[in-house]
């Protein structure tokens, strides 16, 4: 991958709505309102940054997409499926269409890199031969083919995040959701992670990324959705990070 990729222009044909929220409210049992009437639609193939101060509701916004949290009011549609009407036993099917990447990687420390990624395929009962082939494929994509047999603890933070990205895309999800994926990484490593996200998005996967990283948002231009106090305060195509400090 060359650095020119970083400034890759967004000449993509966008598809139908992948994520749609309509008047979504979320009030936690402790009284905190994390979503206060959010309406938004994200098309297939889009790359969206979600920015905003800590505690503004970014995580809740993202968690509602993969049904980790349910809205108190309002509708959420993912790839045409109404999450409210989704039966609990169908939630796994939804999750298989969505890859999730976290700030803290969420890798299993006792499993090797290969096993950590393969895990996501075993869970959906893929054939072992297929698993082996596909896992090596995605590990190559994130540049970790050589470290497949190592344990997460033997890898650097950036490498661990690449493993978690590999796991999120191994089942070819339609959407990848990342919650502060560069939050624990130094700037240089963060750029490497972004390269991989760009690559994933270029292949047509919708990408939603909550971030605090001003440099990245300002350098690699994409749609920016700003959330404050549970409301969308700004939604710009090719926007800026926008906050001072």
């Amino acid at each position: 991958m060359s650095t020119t990729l970083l400034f890759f222009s967004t000449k993509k044909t966008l598809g139908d709505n992948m994520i749609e929220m309509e008047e979504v409210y979320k009030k936690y049992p402790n009284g905190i309102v994390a979503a206060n009437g959010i309406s938004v639609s994200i098309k297939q193939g889009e790359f969206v940054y979600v920015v905003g101060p800590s505690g503004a509701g970014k995580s809740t916004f993202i968690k509602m997409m993969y049904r980790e949290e349910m809205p108190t009011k309002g509708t959420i549609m993912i790839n045409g499926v109404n999450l409210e009407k989704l039966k609990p036993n169908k939630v796994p099917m939804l999750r298989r269409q969505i890859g999730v990447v976290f700030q803290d990687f969420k890798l299993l420390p006792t499993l090797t890199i290969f096993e950590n990624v393969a895990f996501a395929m075993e869970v959906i009962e893929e054939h072992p031969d297929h698993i082996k082939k596909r896992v090596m494929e995605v590990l190559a994509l994130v540049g970790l083919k050589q470290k497949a047999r190592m344990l997460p603890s033997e890898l650097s933070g950036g490498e661990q995040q690449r493993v978690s990205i590999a796991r999120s895309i191994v089942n070819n999800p339609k959407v990848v959701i990342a919650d502060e994926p560069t939050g624990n990484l130094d700037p240089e490593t963060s750029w490497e992670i972004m390269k991989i996200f760009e690559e994933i998005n270029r292949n047509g996967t919708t990408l939603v990324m909550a971030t605090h990283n001003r440099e990245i948002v300002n350098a690699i231009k994409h749609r920016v959705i700003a959330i404050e106090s549970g409301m969308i305060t700004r939604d710009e195509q090719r926007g800026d990070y926008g906050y001072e400090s």
Partner: protein
Amino acid sequence: MAMKANTLRRHVRESFKSLGRNGWMMFASVSAVTITLLLVGVFFVIMMNLNNVAKSIEEDVEIRVHIDVAASDEEQKALQSQIEKLKEVESVTFSPKEEELDNLITSLGEEGEAFTLFEQDNPLNDVFVVKTKNPTDTMKAAEQIEKMKFASKVKYGQGSVEKIFEVTSVGRNIGLILVVGLLFTAMFLISNTIKITIFARRKEIEIMKLVGATNGFIRWPFFLEGLWLGLLGSIIPIIVVGTTYYYAHGYLSEKLAGNFIQLLEFSPFIYQISGLLILLGALIGIWGSLMSVRKFLKV
């Protein structure tokens, strides 16, 4: 939903791996199962033997119907078929008065000699010996027979029979309550120990859910783990109960020889007990682990 062989293999592999990883927890859980099953096993052996004694006492209970001397042969036959028609009755055996006298003489031993005089002019009645299908129906059947014509006297050891039935039924119920109580204690012990191992693995469960594992898929390794724990826990109790019973049976049978108390034979009794312990171990283990994983499966 049919599971693929590969998936099942994965679950089995995972369940063994997890046992290995949580060695001490496994030891604690297996110990809990072992102790419970040991208690249950010993208790069961005692209870089954007591039950057997009670049953043999109960089975000895019979109703003796004295046939009125005035009854003709036809009337006697009518009485017999009338008794046989009762739904509680299993069999009716005719015992002529000569036989009754012989029995009386033998049962009295030396003193019985004096009664041989009566052989000329037997004052006893002919008797129908009635057995009921279920010993506890004795009283009910006797009551009905009493009302019949030509049944001059109906005897079944009134008073003492009722007492025996009461004692055996109370004994059985207490035993059952104790066994059930023991089993529940064990289940909670196991569910708690496994809960600790699962607590350590909640991250794994969380990730499984995030990548789209169904609850069933997540449960399987835990289900198997519980099964292994239960089976492992039943080994020592089976050996201990089996060996102890083998020697105790040999020793006690000798002591009890000639007595009406009879112990259950080693085979097939101990095999049945072993089967029961294996089954209980498996059930306790599975139940315990599924109970503890349940909490972590909520979305």
